[in-house]
């Protein structure tokens, strides 16, 4: 079986509405020559058409690096300050997991560990791997890489769990004399990490994986000479 991607066929599928149309500046769309700076718009929904997401790798890297930088304070700074009759306590994400584990709440400890530590690390490393391999035009296991991407994109949002737990805890434990809990800067850093990694995943165009694979794959249709 030979696979044809729309880019090779000189066509673009609109990312917004899904309408497939001829790409300006390709062999098929030669009647509408692409001029530099001209942005083709979808015939149905008027969204700007891109064959691939613009600057996908660059943007992904930028967002990933920012997220990685913020990941350090997210884990070092406390997310919760507890002021109680027994004194003051600061809790980081890791210490929260340890507390759950030690007090016997194994399911909670596992959930929080997976959501707040495992998932962000996974996202950072997988996205970095994908960006790296795509940048290097590697042909290594494209299917698995695409599946990885899909997994990472889907589970990314679940790291926000800790931020929600902090929000609710801060709002509930406000007993003036017994205990008062306030949020720490680690929560803000962590929220930023989650948002940045989600944006990085959205920016990464997984079709790029297959573009490189197509270069030398016997399964791909011969590539059309590009005119852009």
């Amino acid at each position, binding site marked *: 079986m030979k696979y044809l991607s729309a880019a090779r066929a000189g066509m673009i599928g609109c990312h917004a509405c899904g309408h497939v149309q001829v790409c300006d500046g390709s062999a098929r769309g030669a009647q509408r020559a692409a001029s530099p700076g001209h942005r083709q718009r979808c015939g149905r929904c008027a969204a700007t058409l891109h064959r691939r997401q613009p600057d996908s790798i660059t943007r992904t890297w930028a967002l990933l690096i920012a997220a990685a930088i913020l990941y350090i304070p997210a884990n070092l700074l406390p997310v919760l300050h507890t002021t109680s009759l027994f004194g003051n306590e600061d809790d980081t994400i890791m210490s929260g997991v340890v507390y759950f584990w030690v007090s016997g709440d194994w399911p909670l400890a596992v959930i929080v560990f997976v959501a707040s530590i495992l998932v962000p690390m996974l996202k950072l490393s997988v996205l970095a791997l994908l960006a790296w391999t795509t940048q290097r035009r590697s042909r290594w296991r494209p299917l698995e890489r695409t599946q990885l991407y899909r997994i990472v994109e889907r589970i990314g949002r679940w790291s926000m769990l800790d931020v929600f737990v902090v929000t609710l805890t801060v709002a509930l434990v406000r007993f003036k*004399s017994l205990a008062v809990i306030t949020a720490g800067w680690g929560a803000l850093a962590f929220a930023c990490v989650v948002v940045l990694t989600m944006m990085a995943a959205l920016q990464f165009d997984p079709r790029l994986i297959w573009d490189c694979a197509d270069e030398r794959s016997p399964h791909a249709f011969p590539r059309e000479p590009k005119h852009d």
Partner: protein
Amino acid sequence: MTSPQGPSPSSNGGPPQGPELPPDLPPDLPEPIATPRSGWLPSLVWLVPLVAALVGIALVAKSVIDRGPTITISFSTAEGLEPGKTKVKYKDVDIGSVKTIRLSRDHTRVLVSVQLTKEADDFAVEDTRFWIVRPRIGTSGVTGLGTLLSGAYIGVDAGRSHESQSDFVGLEKPPAVTGDQKGRRFSLHGASLGSIDIGSPVYYRRVQVGQVVGFALDRDGTGVSIDVFVDSPYDQYVGLDSRWWHASGVDLRLDSSGLKLNTQSLATVIIGGLAFQSPPGEAIGPEAPDDTVFRLAGNEGDAMRAPDGPPLTVVMNFNQSLRGLSVGATVDFRGIELGEVTAIGVQYDPKARNFTMPVTMNLYPDRLGRRFRESVEQGGEAAGKQLLRTLVAHGLRGQLRTGNLLTNQLYIALDLFPKAAPVAIDVGRSPLELPTVPNTLEELQVQVADIARKLDQIPFDQISKNLNGTLQSANSLFKQLDTQLAPQARDTLAAAERTFGAAQSTLQQDSPLQSDMHQALTQLTQTLQTLNALADYLERHPESLLRGKNKDPKQP
């Protein structure tokens, strides 16, 4: 929310159809993999939004219906209150919560708006009272400690009125007595507040049975009204005849009857208290109803005294120094306190040209006993005056006596002096004037003063001059004697010796002269013995100088 994998070709699958489709697509494009699925029932799904809407409406309706009235309570401070969180509790049940807290327009009070629950809407009536329960230290102890952990709340005392009200003024302290406490309130009227405060205990036989709930100065400023609350079942011991007194602090008195120290309990020493009891020997009598007014005495003795009846104002004129007599000194009749001195004055009598000291006093003839009172009452005022006249004729006089040798305080004693000079009194005058007799000590003083005066009159210096001259002449006489009289004297002595021999024989035998002398000596011994006994007796009973021997009708 999962989104499908990235941008993908049109949902139609396969090569698209449309105006822009290229005609020369290779014919063997791969087909998408189709997996068929079974469909679902669509129309029942409209139940879901219906149910959601109904649930929402039901919740909103329930919260609106559950809302009771909104009331506003004004406090002086909002310490401990949190909008949205602080609850209003009655008997530890939540009946409402604080919604908002804001300042009054003139910034003097804090207005707390409270939302009551539906069941509690009968709390929004006129005489409901609200206060903030916080940790407090007061005369009745430390209260509200639980709020340190659970946060302050607003306490309620349910009112029983039927008029609804929505603006309340909050109390700053929890009320001493809440509306549902059983017992009775009484009002006491006294001369001063003493050391009483709200919360001071009320004792019955040294058991605390109630507390003071309020006090106020009388409108005309002549006394203090104190409200007390006696818990049930002790309120049955308050009879119409019960006597109330200040049991506060330490009762220390130093007066003509000596030193007296009296306290109720250590608590009353610190915070003061009141006590009540029926007079000894009397039954409690019918129970006093709510709001009975009682008189509040200063101490137990004062309270337990039988009611005095109207006082009789009497004036006594004394001719001696009144130093040691103070206003309030007792007027005593044979040991019974008959009244007290109200005023001491001085008056110049132009006819007699000397000063008299009139002492005004209040006598309470009712203290002389029931029989006396009844017999006087039977006859009316005239009988009383006649009685007085008779008594004065019998020797009823007033006399100043020393009550306390230490402090030299005086008191006035009324007593019958049968040997006193008769005096006629005018019973018509007011205030009545009673005759007086001077003090026995005074008499002694007068006599000694007399003797001193007489001694003064003796011309001692003249006597000494005469004595000097006499001695000088005696000296010259003795010189003469020595030279002239000596030989004559020798002769005389020899003759005398012969005479003495004769006399000795006369005197030796039981001559009458000897026996006379013997008798005289015996009498002298007896007299000395009597004097000795008198001295002894005086040593043991020095007051007999003043009062005489107990059974002695004569005055010393």
